[in-house]
């Protein structure tokens, strides 16, 4: 009797807590998403639409820029996300060590990049990485290179620049999540492991990583989504160039919608490629996390 009442209370409370957010999401996300889904089957320029069936999907398979954008996006994903998250996790666990001196200073310093706005930091990166900018000057003074690297004119280095910029901006950001989560781990577990002679690396892989799994999952899913939607950095620092070397799917959607003759239908189709991609990758990540927790 009281069991069912409790269950009903759970139900009511469950809905009450989430209702305001779910309502707003319904209005400001679900409706536009459905609109966009409908659009992805439309063809035409500007506001003259007609139903095109799978025309847009066929167009995808023949579109060289789409294929370049997709490849670039995947390259960014494969290199940038693991580098950044590993770095963030290692830095967080180093900073969580009470024996490390100047922890406050290091922590603050590494956090700092995430307070800059994208407009501000892309202005900074452009000027630092210009041909005669401070980065080239420093590298040349250190005799690492003898010619300035043309950061935004060379297809390879432009990608390196974008990956460096994102990593600079977002590593500290992800570290915040790890540090916050590390506080919830009882120090005595580490102390006990230490007394048992477990080496630092093993403490990291066997205590820190498993304990942080929910947060690692969170950051890897959000970083994956962030990278698949990569727009701000390439828009502001490289403008997708040179020769589409840093063109990403989101930037291509932006071009299709705002720079080129507007093809909203086709732009919507390209955005659903991202949706499908994220859905698959998120599923894989959740699945892997679940498998490991069972083992």
């Amino acid at each position, binding site marked *: 009797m009281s069991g069912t009442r409790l269950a009903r209370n759970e139900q009511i409370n469950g809905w009450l807590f989430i209702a305001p957010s779910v309502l707003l999401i319904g209005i400001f996300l679900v409706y536009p998403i459905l609109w966009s889904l409908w659009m992805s089957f439309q063809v035409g320029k500007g506001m003259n639409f007609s139903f095109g069936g799978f025309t847009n999907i066929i167009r995808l398979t023949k579109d060289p820029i789409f294929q370049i954008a997709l490849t670039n996006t995947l390259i960014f994903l494969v290199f940038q996300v693991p580098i950044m998250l590993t770095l963030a996790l290692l830095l967080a666990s180093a900073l969580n060590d009470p024996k490390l001196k100047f922890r406050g200073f290091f922590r603050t310093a590494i956090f700092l990049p995430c307070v800059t706005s994208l407009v501000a930091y892309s202005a900074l990166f452009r*000027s630092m990485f210009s041909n005669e900018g401070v980065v080239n000057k420093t590298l040349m003074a250190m005799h690492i290179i003898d010619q300035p690297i043309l950061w935004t004119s060379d297809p390879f280095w432009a990608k390196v620049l974008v990956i460096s910029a994102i990593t600079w901006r977002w590593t500290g950001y992800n570290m915040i999540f790890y540090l916050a989560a590390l506080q919830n781990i009882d120090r005595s577990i580490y102390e006990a492991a230490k007394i048992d002679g477990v080496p630092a690396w093993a403490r990291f892989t066997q205590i820190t990583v498993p304990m942080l799994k929910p947060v690692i999952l969170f950051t890897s899913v959000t970083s994956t989504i962030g990278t698949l939607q990569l727009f701000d950095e390439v828009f502001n620092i490289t403008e997708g160039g040179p020769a589409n070397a840093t063109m990403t799917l989101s930037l291509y959607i932006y071009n299709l919608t705002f720079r080129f003759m507007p093809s909203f239908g086709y732009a919507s189709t390209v955005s659903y490629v991202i949706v499908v991609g994220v859905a698959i990758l998120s599923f894989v990540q959740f699945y892997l996390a679940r498998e490991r927790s069972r083992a």
Partner: protein
Amino acid sequence: MIARILTRGSLYVLMSLVAFVSVFPFYWMIVGATNTSSDVIRGKPTFGTALFDNIAHFFNLFDVPRVLLNTTIIAVVGTVLTLALSSLAGYGFEMFRSKFRDKLFGLMLTMLSIPFSALMIPLFIMMSQAGLMNTFVGIILPGIASIYIIFYFRQATKAFPSELRDAARIDGLKEWQIFLYVYLPVMRSTYAAATIIVFMANWNNYLWPLIILQSNENKVITLIISSMRSGYNPQFGAVMVAVVLATLPTLFIFFALQRRFVEGLLGSVK
């Protein structure tokens, strides 16, 4: 023992290197604000004498106090509302599990992946029909139910000790009281982290305010920086002044909340 000292030493060298790389661009923007436009582009790494000229140029071009006030209102109201609604929902999804709501949550996560540029046009139409163009409400409203932050709070709630909730229930507290008086204080550092994230996102938002805001009186800081950068003859010293001004408030929020962090960390060490 020597090996240990060496590893310690290299750890400090590495950390210092990372810290230097992280902080250098901040030094760069401050130096830039004191240099003339051509010195900024040529990468002059030392302080110059053009600071006051740059400030004067920037303040002549825009109503800077007004712009900063606008940005502050949007960021503060947006942050408070986002944290309130999203932490409620994150807590709700985790604490009151049901199959249906779990599925709903999974569905919401997939929506996270829709690129914003695909939603801009329908959102714009909705805002315009609701008469919210060129208002702060129009900027704030679509962002306050953030799936991203709900997701974050839900993950963080997994670490919230359920004994605390059970104890509170036995004490006869209602669910909203548990949330307000038990959950909220316990999750202080989670809120602090989320505040930093959401405030930064609101303060630094560019694409959406660009669509919604129409008049100079309502502009936010990111819009004026980008409009300064794109002219035929941009004044980079003045741009750097703007960049510094845009960064100061977020730095301030960050330092204010970081203290919370540090307290929390020290507390857990003791």
